[in-house]
């Protein structure tokens, strides 16, 4: 194809602008990783640099000095994310299926029942009291799983997908074959919905993984604190950092670099994994933006 000058010009602009955005998007992480390898001494004297004057693995040594803690934090996060995502997907898709079936007369009322919760809520005070005082969910693994479990938007996206992308004929023939509603759901609809399940599943998992609000509100017990919240506490409090490394009165306590190392440990997995998951997120955004 003949490349005329105006196309070349736009191509150049694209490279510059998009390239700039891309660099801005990733540079902070590179700076983070590089400086986490800097010695505390270097940070105190020279601050964070593009290339540290002195390298050291002390900070990471500190982080993993008490590996039990890190392991515990990761275990909680993985458990909550795993259980939460699976249960959420299962129940959400069931609800979405009901909303998508034309023979369900009350489906619009039910959809509104869900949607109304987006428009109006009873306030933080009530919510907090309900969960901590009335339901006694504070300091349990369940509160971490239940609070972020459902998103009305996700249910509606799944509904739209099921209503638009699953041919009525297939369901009809399954019915003729004698399958009940529940059977049709598990044997026909669910397998056919795998694209939207994959995407919504990933959105849900990401939400669980990054959740710091729920533990902040409801978890005081250290054994139950998940990843992002632990990171938050560490960044927000100097004394917390000291606790983390076991209250060792060392002069060269790597405080600043410790924060960086911890951040890398908390975020590293995501950075490594996300490029492989990107296509499902893109798929999810595309499905979601096709409003039914």
């Amino acid at each position, binding site marked *: 194809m003949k490349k005329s000058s105006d196309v070349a010009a*736009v191509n150049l602009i694209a490279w510059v602008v998009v390239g700039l955005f891309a660099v801005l998007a990733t540079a902070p992480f590179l700076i983070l990783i590089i400086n986490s390898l800097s010695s505390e001494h270097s940070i105190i004297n020279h601050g964070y640099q593009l290339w540290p004057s002195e390298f050291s693995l002390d900070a990471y040594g500190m982080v993993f000095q008490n590996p039990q803690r890190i392991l515990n934090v990761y275990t909680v996060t993985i458990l909550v994310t795993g259980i939460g995502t699976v249960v959420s997907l299962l129940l959400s898709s069931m609800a979405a299926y009901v909303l998508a079936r034309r023979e369900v007369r009350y489906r619009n009322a039910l959809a509104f029942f869900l949607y109304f919760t987006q428009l109006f809520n*009873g306030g933080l005070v*009530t919510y907090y009291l309900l969960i901590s005082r009335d339901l006694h969910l504070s300091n349990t693994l369940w509160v971490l799983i239940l609070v972020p479990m459902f998103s009305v938007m996700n249910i509606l996206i799944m509904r739209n997908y099921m209503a638009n992308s699953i041919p009525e004929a297939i369901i009809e023939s399954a019915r003729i074959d004698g399958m009940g509603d529940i059977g049709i759901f598990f044997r026909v609809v669910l397998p056919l919905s795998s694209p939207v399940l994959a995407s919504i599943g990933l959105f849900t998992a990401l939400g669980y993984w990054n959740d710091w609000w729920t533990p902040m509100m409801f978890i005081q017990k250290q054994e139950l604190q998940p990843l992002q919240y632990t990171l938050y506490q560490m960044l927000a409090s100097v004394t917390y950092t000291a606790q983390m490394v076991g209250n060792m009165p060392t002069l060269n306590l790597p405080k600043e670099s410790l*924060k960086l190392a911890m951040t890398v440990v908390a975020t590293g997995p995501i950075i490594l994994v996300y490029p492989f998951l990107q296509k499902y997120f893109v798929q999810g955004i595309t499905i979601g*933006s096709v409003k039914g």
Partner: protein
Amino acid sequence: MSTKPLRKSPGFFHEIARHPGLYAMFVPVALYFLVFAYVPMTGVVVAFKDFNYQGGIWGSPWNGWDNFRYFFESGKLVQVTINTLLYNTLFLAAYLFFSVVVAILVAEMVNKLAKKIFQTMLFLPYFISWVTVSALVYNLFNYEYGLTNTILKAFGAAPVDIYADANLWPVLLPFFYVWKWVGFGSVLFLAAIAGLDRECYEAASIDGANIFYRIWRITLPQLKPTIIILLLLGVGRIMRGEFDMFYQLIGTNGNLMDATDIIDTLVFRSLVSTQDFGMSSAAGLYQSVLCFIIILAVNGFVRRQDKSQALF
């Protein structure tokens, strides 16, 4: 199954009985929202009470509009409302603008590999939590150690205490918001662009239209529906702030509080830090009611333009 001949409305329980399996499948989700969303709605009365722990929501004494009066007279109502509206408007405008620009540019890029790599790079901020972002920002802006100040000092300039200068943040916050979301937003518009008809472009190109013209006259107008939907969705949420961002980046920083406090952070802080239940619940109810009214208005407006686009 039961194909009853034409009958008048069989009634609620008949309907459930006809599809017991289906309605049963809806129960878990319904139960969840009943407990976690609808039951708390009855507690809005706490905004009109002088809450204490012994009495709980129901036992605490009423105090009429006192909480709201304090919310208004302390200046907080005006301040957080203005902040919330201003910031959300800035965020929405910047987000839409840059998402469209980046999407169009990526779409026009010739090199496929570069496209993929750039998109992947752009998407990274979306995946990380605001907690991590606050760490990154701290690395950059910290007065003693931050990279910005390190570089400034290397050039002989004086370091800047960014965390103490309230004037910088009305610019910084939209920047970070776009930074976090442009990857996501550009994908949205790229999906829309991918669905556009190629023939129009070819015809225009044959007729001598250059690429700028093609973008301006063909791409952009066809993106208008998507932009409008997002705009309306955004306006509908104009009173709900990006709590995570504000709380993580600003936190409890006294210097920046006045300039950056939004309704959500006020509600949260009043509950968690200062234990001011009255303020928290009054501000919360205020926000809910306003949100509700705004969404109804926006939805009504959209309904009149194009019924299919309305939310309900």
